[in-house]
């Protein structure tokens, strides 16, 4: 008998379990206290966490589901990550012992930059946007990984640190094997005692899987799917960091699916039921009625290519899209990778998903995303299988990426060139010495510009040093040995992921408001240096004074100076230059894991968080929003979809391996927009060589009604900035911001 996805029972059962989260793990934490030894290595101390989880943490088995995956380690129901302060549960147990570093990080220097709206972040490293390399288990099972570690332990020239690393990694794998064995035994027992025939059948199917995987390599589609689901969930439960990326489902499961369809052991309908049940996990687990700043992070990659660049598009791709369309889940985010070689059918399916208004879709332009990774020095085969998530953070399967953990106000770091005296003091207050050039005294714009780029780069270097300083101690707070064991290189290198064990070790600051930067620099160029409409002295005074009593100048800057995105060749070329120079100033600094800082314009919701930053020369007052993602400013007028796409021309996003998001808000009125229109937008986006686009289809009237009568409109999901949420759960401020986007 095959599995049937009974959505109502499924959600009911998940609710029963997860409404009890976080469960009390005081007993386990006390046990951890008794074995924790500050004199031991952090590896060994983390190994104790794995051991306790492996032996003791309760298993939550869902009789309505086709997979087993949930180990209750005390983590919160709505949790993507460990952050500051550490979250409840065993995953963060070691981190809770080592809060000194985070305290120091959040101590004296950061609040200065937070207060002045230059930096927003509470962690010094990325704890949310990781991917556990499931393909390694697919190849060898946990047994194979165990053997790899044991073989490595036999080498004779290991030092004590390496020995501690390997033996702890082995404990992590053994603990997961122990969890799997407990699942197997518990499933058998539950199956035997279950009276409801359909639930008994589900338990039997799960038990069948547990007999083989994840200990051994999967042989069938269902076993491979089990490994796909289990690996990510166990990592979330164990590691105290978030594994936002569910994986590249159609690429990883495609061959298993084909094989089982061919040998007649699987039908298409059965596979669809499994896909639907898998897609439902995030929504069923989370309490979506709570306000979720940042959303669930869960991201599923489809399409794209294999390692050798061959496009991936198969029945699984279609099933994922059909499952989302049928059930209208809010999560996971669908990260659709596109190449020009994909069949028309793929574009049609994606257009349907975009049109549906579920607002779960991001579209990635492979040519640019892969190109950017290669330009950064990564191997093409690795870049070809990139993934992306929480929002749209790029990672390779063999990369420890540290992105989207801190946001930096780019516009702020260009304003410092107008007021170097003031900002030198700010940096000083934070304990940082910065030498800022007095750009505003320069006779020509070229000189001003050079100084401004220099000042920007100087500030970035200070932040790089700051973050490197803290990252050099990251392993002390939370090594991730099971995550490391899943990588292709950590065991061989005998290094944890947190200390550079992965093949690639990228870092990036999420740079916010590039549009405001372009417009502000261009305003200085035109109004001060070329048209001489205003003197530098008067401009500084007006900007410094938030344009109080200077509304005429502000209106001139807003409405008479061309803005990025407008049909004006000069601003187009200028924007392209600023993008290039900003990227250079951001790139190439080494981090402590042997990787480099990469340029990124990934800015999440920081255009709102930084809104109280001082006025900027583009006519923006303090309190006005900065620009979103890589979008042009909408201060002086709304921007339609065609103009938005056109604004992407001539900008080389391969300079930004960390990416930048184009937010494509499509207001719909009474009339529905055809699928073909969405298809055209997707294709044009690819042609314009942009990076990633986030769809948001919004009906203004419905949103206004939903705001007034939330209880009547509980099913509207909207895209905030890289994540989706139910509209009625948003704060009033955020609801208003979303509604404002519909006035185009």
């Amino acid at each position, binding site marked *: 008998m095959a599995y049937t996805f009974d959505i109502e029972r499924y959600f009911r059962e998940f609710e029963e379990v997860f409404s009890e989260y976080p469960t009390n793990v005081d007993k386990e934490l006390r046990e951890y206290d008794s074995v924790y030894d500050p004199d031991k290595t952090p590896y060994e101390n983390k190994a104790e966490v794995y051991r306790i989880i492996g032996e003791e943490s309760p298993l939550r088995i869902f009789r309505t589901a086709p997979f087993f995956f949930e180990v209750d380690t005390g983590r919160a129901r709505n949790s993507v990550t460990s952050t500051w302060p550490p979250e409840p549960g065993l995953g963060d147990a070691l981190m809770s012992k080592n809060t000194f570093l985070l305290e120091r990080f959040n101590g004296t220097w950061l609040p200065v930059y937070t207060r002045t709206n230059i930096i927003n972040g509470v962690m010094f490293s990325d704890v949310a946007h990781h991917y556990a390399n499931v393909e390694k288990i697919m190849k060898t099972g946990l047994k194979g990984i165990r053997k790899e570690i044991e073989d490595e332990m036999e080498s004779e020239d290991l030092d004590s640190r390496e020995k501690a690393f390997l033996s702890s990694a082995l404990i992590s794998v053994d603990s997961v094997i122990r969890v799997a064995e407990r699942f197997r035994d518990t499933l058998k027992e539950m199956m035997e005692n279950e009276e409801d025939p359909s639930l008994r059948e589900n338990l039997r199917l799960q038990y069948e899987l547990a007999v083989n995987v994840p200990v051994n390599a999967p042989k069938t589609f269902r076993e491979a799917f089990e490994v796909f689901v289990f690996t990510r969930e166990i990592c979330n439960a164990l590691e105290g960091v978030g594994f936002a990326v569910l994986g590249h489902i159609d690429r990883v499961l495609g061959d298993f699916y084909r094989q089982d369809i061919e040998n007649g052991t699987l039908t298409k309908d059965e596979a669809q039921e499994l896909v639907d049940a898998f897609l439902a996990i995030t929504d069923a687990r989370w309490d979506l009625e709570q306000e979720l700043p940042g959303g669930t992070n869960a991201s599923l990659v489809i399409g794209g290519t294999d390692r050798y660049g061959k496009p991936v598009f198969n029945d699984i791709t279609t099933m994922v899209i059909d499952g989302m369309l049928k059930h209208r889940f809010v999560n996971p985010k669908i990260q659709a990778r596109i190449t020009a070689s994909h069949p028309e059918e793929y574009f049609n399916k994606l257009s349907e998903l975009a049109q549906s208004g579920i607002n779960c879709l991001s579209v990635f332009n492979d040519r640019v995303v892969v190109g950017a990774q290669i330009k950064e020095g990564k191997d093409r085969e690795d870049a070809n299988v990139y993934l992306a998530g929480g929002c749209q953070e790029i990672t390779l399967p063999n990369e420890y990426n540290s992105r989207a953990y801190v946001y930096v106000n780019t516009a702020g770091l260009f304003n410092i060139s107008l007021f170097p005296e003031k900002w030198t003091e700010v940096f000083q207050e934070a304990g940082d010495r910065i030498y800022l050039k007095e750009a505003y005294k320069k006779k020509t714009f070229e000189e001003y510009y050079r100084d401004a780029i220099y000042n920007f780069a100087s500030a970035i270097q200070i932040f790089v040093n700051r973050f490197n300083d803290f990252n050099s101690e990251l392993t002390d707070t939370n090594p991730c040995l099971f995550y490391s064991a899943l990588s292709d290189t950590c065991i061989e290198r005998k290094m944890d992921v947190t200390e550079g064990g992965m093949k690639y070790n990228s870092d990036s600051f999420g740079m916010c408001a590039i549009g405001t930067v372009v417009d502000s620099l261009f305003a200085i160029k035109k109004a001060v240096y070329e048209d001489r409409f205003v003197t530098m002295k008067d401009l500084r005074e007006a900007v410094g004074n938030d344009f109080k009593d200077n509304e005429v100048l502000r209106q001139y800057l*807003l409405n008479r100076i061309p803005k990025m995105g407008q049909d004006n060749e000069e601003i187009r070329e200028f924007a392209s230059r600023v993008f290039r120079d900003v990227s250079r100033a951001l790139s190439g600094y080494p981090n402590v894991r042997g990787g480099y800082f990469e340029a990124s314009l990934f800015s999440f919701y920081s255009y709102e968080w930084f809104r109280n930053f001082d006025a900027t020369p583009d006519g923006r007052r303090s309190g006005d929003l900065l620009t979103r993602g890589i979008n042009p400013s909408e201060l002086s007028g709304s921007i339609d979809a*065609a103009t938005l796409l*056109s604004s992407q021309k001539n900008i080389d996003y391969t300079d930004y391996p960390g990416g930048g998001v184009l937010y494509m808000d499509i207001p719909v*009125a009474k*009339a529905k927009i055809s699928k073909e229109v969405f298809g*055209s937008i997707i294709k044009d986006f690819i*042609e314009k060589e942009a990076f990633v686009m986030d769809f948001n289809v919004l009906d203004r009237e419905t949103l206004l009604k939903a705001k007034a009568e939330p209880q009547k409109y509980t099913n509207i999901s909207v895209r905030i900035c890289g994540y989706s949420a139910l509209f009625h759960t948003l704060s009033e401020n955020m609801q208003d911001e979303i509604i404002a986007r519909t006035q185009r």
Partner: protein
Amino acid sequence: MTRGLIFDIQHFSLHDGPGIRTTVFLKGCSLNCAWCHNPESIAIKNSLMFEENRCIGCRACETVCGNNVHFFTDDGRHKVDFSRCSGCGECQKVCFAGALKMIASSYDTENIVSLVLRDRGLYEKSGGGVTFSGGEPLLQAEFVSEAAQMLKEQEIHVAIDTALNVPRENIDLVMPYADLFLCDLKAVSEDIFRKYIGNSNERIMENLRYVASKKNVFIRTPVVKGVNDSMSELTKIRDVIDGLGENVKEVGLLSYHDLGVNKALKVGMEEHRFEIQGSGDFTEKLELFKDRGYRLLFDGSEVR
């Protein structure tokens, strides 16, 4: 190179013909519909538009205007005496806030073609193109004809959104380069025309038959309560459409909205506000037009 007076260029336009389009709005109209949603477009001569909510009270306009068009009340409110305005545009130059704008700008055909070609990729992918609308675009038929010819040379789909109250030769100028006509059919009865549109219907009907005999046509009928919304008038409209033959590919009924009322105030005009009807009021009316060989739309959505 011919020049045209254009009051708006709307990119990513989805309801003025097939696919993704750019709509170019030409100033000047030969009708005077009481419900006009673009009242600022009616006058053939360029004139001033005032958006009071954008005014920052800098009073720069007052100093440059030689005709005392602009004055300020004791409480600082900016008032505009449109009757004194010569349309010189001096005030627009000093109004950085954009409260004062000349409604239209003059473009030559090369300008306009290069502007709309920006979105060529979107037209090609979506089966879209460029629509000339208004006002009445065929009042500037030479300009439209020249621009349309240039677009046809670039293989861009061209639509003309017209009320057809123009001399036949204006239509003929454009005909070779137009792929599609979006024709208004506001009413059939002569008394409605005279009362609410200020004109006779005769020439329009002749032109409609002429255009429909030569090119594909989409018919668009604004339905205004108390004007043309009776079943008898709509039946007449339906029957006229039936007589136009197979080139009628689409018929769209549009419910009245009152955006024109406020726009009229900004250009010193007054417009009557008609009653807005809910979509439920259209169920019976739409039945009249169903299953007659063309695609039927209501407010841009297909009706089946």
